[in-house]
C-alpha cells in the first residue's frame, strides 16, 4: 500500500524537499499556538423538529404553560471539545457522519456562536467548504463576483481573478454555463464553482471541509494542488475527510470526533488505526 501511495504522490514528494527548507527558515519558535479551543459546546436550535404533536393546540398548550422551547428542539452538536493547534500543523478531523466535524470547524471559523466555552484564533480563520451556500437564483458569474466581494476582495481584485476562478472550476469546459443560474447546475458543478471561489483567496488559518470529495478526478487533482499551495502559506490547516488516505497524506495529527465528543487526539497513524478498528466493526 505504501508503495502505491509513493508512486501516486510522486508530485507531492518532489515538492516536499523544498517545503522542508522553507519550514526550516520559518518557525524559529515552533510551538506557537494558533487555535485554542476550550470546553467548546455548540447547540443548534431547530424549529419544526419538535418532538410530540405539531398541532395548533399542542403549540398553544406549550405557550400557555411557558414550557421552554415550544416548537423548538435543541441539538447538542459539539460537547466540550478542547484542543490546541500549533503553527505548522496539519490536523485531520475524522468521525462518522453527523459526529460534529463540520460544526466544530464552523465554530472555529467564528461562523457559529458557541453555547459555552471559547475558541481563540490567530487572525481570521477561513473555511473552505462544499456547504458554502451560494445564491441559487443568480448566475454563476454573479456568484463569483458576489462571493469574492463578500470575502472582502476589492472590485478590481475580483475582476482580475474572475477568469482564473472560472477556468479553475472548469464550468465553461462544456459550453457557456457560467451565465446560467446556479439552480440549473448539477450538484458536482455547483460544488466545483463554490470551491473555486473560496480557494481564490489566501488564508491564515485554513480549514477544508470535504472539499476534495466533490468533482471528478481531474478537478480533484487540481484542487489538491491548490490546497497544497494554500498550505504553504497557511499557519495551520484543518482537513475534514472520510478518505483516510488523503488524511494520511496531508496530516500528522488527527482529532477523532464521535457524537460531538473528542474521542482521540494524537499522531495520525495511532488514531487512524483505532478509527479503522472502530469502523470495521
Amino acid at each position, binding site marked *: 500500500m505504501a508503495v502505491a501511495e509513493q508512486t501516486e504522490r510522486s508530485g507531492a514528494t518532489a515538492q516536499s524537499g523544498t517545503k522542508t527548507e522553507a519550514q526550516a527558515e520559518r518557525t524559529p519558535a515552533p510551538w506557537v499556538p494558533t487555535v485554542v479551543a476550550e470546553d467548546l459546546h455548540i447547540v443548534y436550535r431547530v424549529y419544526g423538529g419538535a418532538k410530540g404533536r405539531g398541532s395548533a393546540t399542542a403549540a398553544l398548550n406549550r405557550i400557555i404553560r411557558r414550557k421552554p422551547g415550544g416548537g423548538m428542539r435543541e441539538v447538542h452538536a459539539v460537547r466540550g471539545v478542547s484542543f490546541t493547534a500549533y503553527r505548522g500543523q496539519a490536523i485531520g478531523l475524522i468521525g462518522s457522519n453527523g459526529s460534529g466535524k463540520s460544526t466544530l470547524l464552523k465554530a472555529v471559523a467564528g461562523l457559529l456562536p458557541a453555547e459555552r466555552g471559547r475558541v481563540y484564533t490567530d487572525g481570521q480563520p477561513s473555511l473552505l467548504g462544499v456547504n458554502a451556500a451560494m445564491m441559487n437564483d443568480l448566475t454563476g458569474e454573479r456568484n463569483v463576483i458576489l462571493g469574492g466581494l463578500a470575502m472582502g476582495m476589492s472590485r478590481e481584485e475580483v475582476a482580475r481573478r474572475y477568469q482564473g476562478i472560472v477556468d479553475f472550476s472548469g464550468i465553461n469546459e462544456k459550453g457557456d454555463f457560467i451565465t446560467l443560474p446556479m439552480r440549473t447546475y448539477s450538484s458536482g458543478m455547483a460544488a466545483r464553482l463554490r470551491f473555486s471561489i473560496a480557494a481564490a483567496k489566501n488564508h491564515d488559518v485554513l480549514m477544508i471541509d470535504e472539499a476534495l470529495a466533490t468533482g471528478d478526478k481531474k478537478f480533484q487533482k487540481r484542487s489538491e494542488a491548490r490546497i497544497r499551495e494554500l498550505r504553504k502559506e497557511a499557519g495551520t490547516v484543518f482537513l475534514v475527510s472520510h478518505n483516510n488516505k488523503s488524511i*494520511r497524506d496531508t496530516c500528522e495529527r488527527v482529532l477523532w470526533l464521535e457524537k460531538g465528543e473528542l474521542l482521540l487526539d494524537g499522531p495520525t*497513524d495511532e488514531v487512524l488505526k483505532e478509527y479503522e478498528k472502530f469502523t470495521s466493526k
Partner: protein
Amino acid sequence: MSETTHDSAVGVTPPPSPDDGLTSAELAAKYGLSVSGARPTLPEYVRQLWARRHFILAFSRAKLTAQYSQAKLGQLWQVATPLLNAAVYFLIFGIIMGGREGIPGGQNRYIPFLVTGVFVFTFTQTSVLNGVRAISSNLGLVRALHFPRASLPISISLQQLQQLLFSMIVLVVILLGFRELPGFSWLMIVPVLACQFVFNTGLALIMARLGSKTPDLAQLMPFITRTWLYASGVMFSLPYMLTKHNAPDWLVDVMQGNPATVYMDLMRYALIDEYGVSDMSPLAWPLAVFWAVVFGIGGFVFFWKAEERYGRG
C-alpha cells in the same frame, strides 16, 4: 512513513514548556490570539461595513434582477407590480368606497395622490417584510462567509430603493398625464427619499434581528404592515376622514406624524401642485429627519448588539 510525508517542522504533542500551567485565556493572551467570532467595536464595525460597500451594492442589484428572473415578462414586473397595486386600490377605495372625497385639489387629483402614496408606502412596507427574512433566508451565506451581517438588511432596503426608482418612472408618466408638470419643487424628492431610505434601513435592521430570533414574525408582519397601510392615509385623505368622523385634533396630529404618512405627504407636496403645506403635518420636515435619525442610528446599534449570534439561526 509519517516522517517522510508530513511536511511540518513540529510534531504532534508539544514538549514541556513554560506555557503548560497557563489557562486557555492566558495562553491566548500571550500569543495574541483573539476570540473567534467576537463582536467588533462599533467604529470597527462601521469600518468593516464600509469596506464591503461594493458587496452590499452588488448584492442588492443581483437580488433585484433575480426577483423576476423566472417570470416570462421578466423585469417588466418591476413596473407592473406597483401599477397593478395602485389599480386595485383605485377600484376599491377610489370608486367603491368613495375615498376620492376630500382629496386636496379635488377628485380628479385622486390618481396622482393614490399612486404617489402607494409607491412611497410600498418602499417602507417591503423593506420591513424582506427585512424580517434578511438573516433567515440567507443563513447559508451567513454560515459560510465572513462579512458584517448588517450588509444583508442594508442591501435589502437598497434593493427596495432601486425598485422605487423604477416605479418613479411610472409615476412621472402618470403625473404628466394629469398635467402635473415638473417644477423646482420636484427637487425635494431627493431629501425626502434620503430620509425615508435611512428610516427604512433602520427598520429593516431592527426587523432582521427580531426575525432571526423569532421566525414567527415573518407570518405576523404582513398584518401589521397592512394595518399601518390603512392607518396612514395611503388611499384617502387622513385629516378629511378623521374630522368627518369627529376625531379630536390631537389624534389627527398624531396620525399625521407617523413616519409613513410624513414621507408620503412630503412626496405628494413635492410632486402635486394642489397639495399644499396645510394638507400635511406642520412638523413634516423636522419629523422626517427625526424618524430617520432615531430609527437609522437606533436600528444599527440594535442590530450590531447581536452580531456574533446571527449564525445560530
